[in-house]
Each structure stands twice: as structure tokens, then as C-alpha cells.
């Protein structure tokens, strides 16, 4: 709160000062050199802000107006800022043509002197790129002031448009703290660890990837229910009696399953705008993911429904239930149980595949990590992204494993029995426990076993759709 207030005050004073200077300076002498712009490169890890006290690159551009040559430019930033340790790249342009001008630069605290070997002629653009300079730690809106020398002597430079600098963030401070730790330095000196698991970057990546992670989650969470509904619809269409309906479903499913998601994304993102349909990128992302998943889900649902033994349909029919009742009360509930592992695996795939949306500019996890890696030249942001993916996928994989195990148990008749009412003897069927032990090899839920189970779960899930020998409705005691 206090920092905020102070920033506001600083900003206000700066604005007032700038206003004052323009009012005072403008009428007195005709400006021979103007400042066109001053910008600083964002140095917030993973963000777009300019942080004080951290090195950044200042780009200052000024134009030499008519009537004068400029031989020297001095830039000044507020007291706490520093040019020490910076390097300056001097570019002089006549229009778009680069002029060959040598310059000597000298830094001293918050001032930077640029001494040109020859006078800069009128009409030229002087571009100074000062790399590794720092703005004051407190942050605020800073204008670059200074002086220039010409034949007429030394004159003041007009203030540049102000640059918004934010105060150092706790995150940045944590990074700076990490920078100073000897164990961090030792860790980073290992080429592999420094390139893949740099602690400072890991920290900043986690913070700046969070938004992208949310985008991924929201996309897949919104898309998936749509995909389930679409998938169910197409599953039924594929099983329909009507030939045309069936053909439509088969075409839809095969085209979507037969082409890469990447291609579908390209077609939708580049194709729709071309025919004049402009949809928000995130919404379009949801649509593409939903449509793609629906094709896979349709097949999963169809296989699930068809794996229900005909005896179930016959039993329902013999009770007088009609087709809709049979589907809703008998077939779908059983199908849901059977397809949960496969559907969860598909959900995991969908969630991971949101990464492909980065190629068309959806600001999701992969996009953020790609940007960070580009800026840092380090793989760590990708590792942070991997962790963000795993946060979601590992528990789900675990869930798949548990559900499958429970399913195997209940279908083989080994599940926990509710307490029998009254004084009944426990069901005297010796084959039941034996079957249970065959199916439930992994009932122990210890850590290592659990993790291995989780890691292998997606590869076992397919079995859940294949019909088991429960056409008997449970234990086949006659075997």
C-alpha cells in the first residue's frame, strides 16, 4: 500500500516536473536536438515490466534538428540509477541509412557521455542502446534528461517520455538472493543442472507460467464436457440404424482421428479468419480441442456400449423396458464405469495437447515457457512447464489406476461386502475369493507400487473396454 502511494507521488512529481520543464525550456531557446523516444527492455522474468535495480537495456533516440551539429550527448537518469557496467551501441541514421560514426562512451554513475568522433549533421537520428544499465530500485516513472554539445555550446536536452519502472518484486528479490547462494552457483556450474534445473529460473518460471497453466486448464475443462456430449451423440449416430446417419458419424470420426490435431488447429485458426469468421483465440482453442476429443470419445463410448453383453439388453427387455429406458438405466451406467479409465486417459491426452495451441498464439503454458526459454536461453522454463503438466496428469493417472483396480475387483466379485442383515451366513461360494485374488494383484497401496501403477495405468486402460466374462453377471461358478 505504502509503496503504491509512494510510486504515485513520484509519478505525479515527475509529470509535474516534466510539464514544468517543457513550459520553461520551450520558449527560451529553440531546441536543436529533440528526444524522440526512450524505452527500456522488459527485464521482469516472464513478465513485461521494467524492474528497477535489475539490469535492462535503455534505447534512447534523438533527432538533430536543423541548424546545428551535435558532437556530444550526455544522458542522465535519476540518482539511484546507474550506467556503470553498461555497454552502449551507437547508431546514427539518415532516414533508414546507417551512417558510419565512431563514438566514445563514458559512464559515471547516473550519467552517460557519448562523444562523437565527428559532428552529427542535422536531420540525423541518433540511437543509443545502453545494455546492462539499471533504473533506480524504488521504481516510478522516470524520464531521461541530459545535455548535448554543439558549436553553440552546451544545451539541455528535453526530457524523454517517461519510462514506467516497477519497484523490485519479492520474486525478483528471491532470485537475487538465490544468485548469491554458493550452493546455487555450485548447482548451476554443472552443465546439465544449470541448463535444465536452474533454481532462479525455476522459481520465476513457476510464477510466470501460472497464467498459462490456468489457460490450459480452463480450455480443457470447458472443452471436455462439450467433447463428451458430442462424443456421445456421434457414438449413437455411429450405431444408428439409418445408413446416412451412420455414414456422417463415421466420416466425422475417421477424419478427426485420421488427421493430426496440429493440422486441425492450423485449419481452424488460419482458415476461419479467411472466411470472415473471427472468434477469440481461446474460444477457438476450446472448440478445436472439444471437436478433436469428441471423435476419440465417440469411439470409446461406442466400444463401451457395445461391450455390454446382449444379456443385459434381453434382461431389460424381458422386464418390459423400452429402448430409451434400457439405455439410460441399464446400459449407460455400466458403460460409464467401463470407460472411466479410458476417458480419463483421453482427458490427460487432451490436456497435454493444449500445448499445440501455442503454435497459433494461444497464450498457454507452452507458449509462456517457450518465450521464457527464448529470453533466458535455458531449458529450465520447459522443465517448469513439465511440472505444471504433471501436477494435473500424475494424480489423474493415479485415479485411473485406482478406478481400474476397483473395477477389476467388483467385476470379479471380490469387493467389500456390505454387512448381511440378520444372522445369515456369509455367502458360501468358495470360488469368489479365489477369483478376487487373481484380479486384484495391486491392492497394496504403498508408495513405490502406487507410482509404478500410476505410470503404467494409461497403458492398461484399454483392457477395461474389452468385455470380461461377466456375461454371467458376475462369478461364473460353472467354470
Amino acid at each position: 500500500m505504502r509503496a503504491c502511494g509512494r510510486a504515485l507521488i513520484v509519478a505525479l512529481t515527475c509529470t509535474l516536473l516534466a510539464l514544468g520543464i517543457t513550459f520553461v525550456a520551450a520558449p527560451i531557446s529553440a531546441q536543436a536536438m529533440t528526444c524522440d523516444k526512450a524505452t527500456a527492455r522488459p527485464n521482469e522474468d516472464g513478465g513485461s515490466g521494467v524492474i528497477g535495480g535489475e539490469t535492462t537495456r535503455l534505447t534512447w533516440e534523438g533527432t538533430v534538428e536543423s541548424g546545428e551539429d551535435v558532437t556530444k550527448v550526455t544522458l542522465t537518469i535519476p540518482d539511484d540509477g546507474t550506467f556503470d557496467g553498461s555497454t552502449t551501441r551507437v547508431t546514427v541514421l539518415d532516414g533508414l541509412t546507417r551512417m558510419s560514426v565512431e563514438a566514445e562512451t563514458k559512464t559515471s554513475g547516473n550519467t552517460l557521455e557519448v562523444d562523437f568522433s565527428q559532428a552529427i549533421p542535422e536531420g540525423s537520428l541518433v540511437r543509443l542502446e545502453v545494455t546492462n544499465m539499471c533504473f533506480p530500485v524504488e521504481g516510478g516513472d522516470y524520464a531521461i534528461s541530459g545535455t548535448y554539445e554543439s558549436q553553440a555550446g552546451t544545451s539541455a536536452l528535453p526530457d524523454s517520455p517517461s519510462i514506467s519502472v516497477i519497484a523490485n518484486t519479492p520474486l525478483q528479490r528471491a532470485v537475487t538472493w538465490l544468485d548469491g547462494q554458493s550452493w546455487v552457483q555450485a548447482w548451476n556450474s554443472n552443465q546439465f543442472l544449470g541448463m535444465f534445473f536452474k533454481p532462479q529460473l525455476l522459481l520465476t518460471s513457476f510464477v510466470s507460467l501460472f497464467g498459462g497453466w490456468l489457460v490450459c486448464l480452463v480450455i480443457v475443462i470447458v472443452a471436455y464436457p462439450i467433447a463428451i456430449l458430442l462424443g456421445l451423440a456421434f457414438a449413437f449416430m455411429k450405431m444408428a440404424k439409418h445408413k446416412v446417419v451412420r455414414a456422417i458419424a463415421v466420416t466425422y470420426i475417421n477424419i478427426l482421428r485420421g488427421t493430426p490435431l496440429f493440422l486441425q488447429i492450423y485449419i481452424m485458426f488460419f482458415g476461419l479468419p479467411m472466411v470472415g469468421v473471427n472468434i477469440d483465440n481461446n474460444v477457438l482453442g476450446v472448440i478445436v480441442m472439444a471437436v478433436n476429443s469428441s471423435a476419440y470419445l465417440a469411439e470409446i463410448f461406442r466400444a463401451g456400449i457395445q461391450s455390454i453383453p446382449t444379456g443385459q439388453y434381453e434382461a431389460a427387455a424381458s422386464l418390459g423396458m423400452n429402448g430409451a429406458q434400457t439405455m439410460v438405466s441399464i446400459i449407460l451406467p455400466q458403460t460409464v464405469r467401463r470407460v472411466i479409465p479410458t476417458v480419463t486417459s483421453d482427458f490427460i491426452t487432451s490436456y497435454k495437447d493444449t500445448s499445440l495451441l501455442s503454435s497459433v498464439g494461444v497464450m498457454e503454458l507452452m507458449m509462456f515457457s517457450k518465450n521464457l526459454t527464448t529470453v533466458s536461453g535455458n531449458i529450465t522454463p520447459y522443465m517448469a512447464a513439465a511440472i505444471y503438466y504433471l501436477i494435473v496428469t500424475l494424480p489423474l493417472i493415479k485415479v485411473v489406476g485406482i478406478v481400474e483396480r476397483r473395477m477389476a475387483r467388483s467385476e470379479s466379485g471380490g469387493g467389500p461386502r456390505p454387512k448381511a442383515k440378520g444372522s445369515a451366513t456369509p455367502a458360501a461360494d468358495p470360488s469368489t475369493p479365489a477369483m478376487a485374488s487373481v484380479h486384484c494383484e495391486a491392492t497394496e497401496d504403498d508408495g513405490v507400487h502406487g507410482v509404478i501403477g500410476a505410470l503404467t495405468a494409461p497403458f492398461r486402460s484399454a483392457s477395461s473396454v474389452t468385455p470380461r466374462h461377466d456375461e454371467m453377471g458376475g462369478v461364473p461358478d460353472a467354470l
Partner: protein
Amino acid sequence: MKREDRRFIGIVACIVCALTAALAIAGCSSGSGSSSTTTAASSASADTSSYTTVESGKLIVASDLAYPPLESVPDGGGDPVGFDVDLMNALAGKLGLTCEYLPAQKFDSIVPTIKQGGKADVGCSSFTITDERKEEIDFTDSYMDSNQGLVTKSDATATTVDALNVAGKQIAVQSGTTGEEWAQENLPNATVVPLDDAIQAMTGVQTGLYDACVADLPVMKYLCNNSYTDLKVSIEIPTGEQYGIVVSKDNPGLTAALNTALQELKDDGTIDSLEEKWFGSTM
């Protein structure tokens, strides 16, 4: 309690496994890394005028090959063409080496590739010489001057910095370029979308997915004149940046040799004639 214990042991076991694997990989990578760089470094430290290449007799170049007329793969495939390609061939000729291009690399991966070594000798993909890049790798002397250009649709209304520096505007750039930096610095309110190559950015602007794209002016001009005739360069951004060839810091001999060869090509007019060939005039 027992269950908890076992779970804990399991977790510890996992961490140990992961660390072992990580260290094993680390050992491998640092081992191979050092072995490949020592040959270069030792020869370089012995005599800076000598150098090594990844494959003897060859100069292997990494480039994104999607930046006409500087470097691109012609329609229908084939060998890369462009100003940079001709330049690299001429330079290799001067050094008595055969110039060989890697398949198209992602632009933002070229500097790390050269830094890591072992895959390519130089990166030549219209690299602007910047102080940040110089911290990672060495540049040769510059061989061409360039500027930035901002491209929009010909009939676009938002064509100025002020009009584009608005929340909701999408600016496509090529990831890792000075164009990307310019957009981030000068259009902070817009969303800057980094893409793999400039062609993709142009296509996105053409289809209306993005409002503008920013990249090197010669390329933007070329593409607007040839392939993307419904787009135009709305802002010519004077930056006066200069292209250099990227060489590993471990190979100063190669940088020196390339600089010598570059000077010879400047002196004998080869570079002027190449500019004439690819840009229609000397830059």
C-alpha cells in the same frame, strides 16, 4: 503408521532414482560437451589464427531458412537460396571449405546450438549484432545494415504505433528476434505473439489472426512485394541494426578468418554485387 513409513520410503526411493538419472545424464552431457569443445579451444588457445570445424573441410551453417530474400528454401524444395546463402558460400570459398547448410533450424535455437557446439560451425540467419547476444557467442564484423518494418493488411486502419499499442491487438513476431524485442518495448499494451518463423507471422496477418507483424525491413518489403501483395509495410522503423555471423566463443580463430574473408569480399565488390542481385541496389 507402517503404511506412512512405506510411502515415505517410496518417495525417497523415487527422488534417489531421479537424482541418479539426472546426474548420469549430466555426466554424459558434460563429458561429451567438454570433449568436443576442447579440440576447438586447445587449437584456438595455441594459435588464434587457426580454427577447427565440426567436419573437416566443411563449414556447416545453421539458419532458419524462412527469411527471403536473405535465406529461404525455394518453392518445391532444393538447396537454400538467398543473400546470406550466397555470402556463406563465398566466405567458405575464401576459406577453402565447402559450405553446407543444416536443415531449417528454429531461429531461437540457433544461438544455443552454436554455443553448445558440435552441430554447426556458424549461424547465419540475418542475426543482428546485439550486446546481449554477444554475451553468449561471438559475432563476425557486420556484413549488412538493416532496419525493422511493421506490416499490416493494406486496408488496415490501425497502422501506427499509437493505434496498435492497445490492449487486445495481437502483434506477431518471430521468436527471439530484434523485431520481438522492438514490439515488446514499443507496443507494451498489445499482445506480442512469438512464432517460429516470419512466414507464419505474415500468414497470420493475412488471415486476420494478428493485427500486425514486426520483422526485418528488407524481408518485410520483399514479402509484401512478392508473396503477400495484400499486405504492406506500414511503419519503417529506423534501427540501423547490423547483421553478423554467429560463431562460438570457443572458436575465435574462425571468427578472425571469417572477418578477413569478409573484408576481402567487401573490397573485391562481391558483397555489392550480391546486394545488387538480391535487393536490386546496394544497401
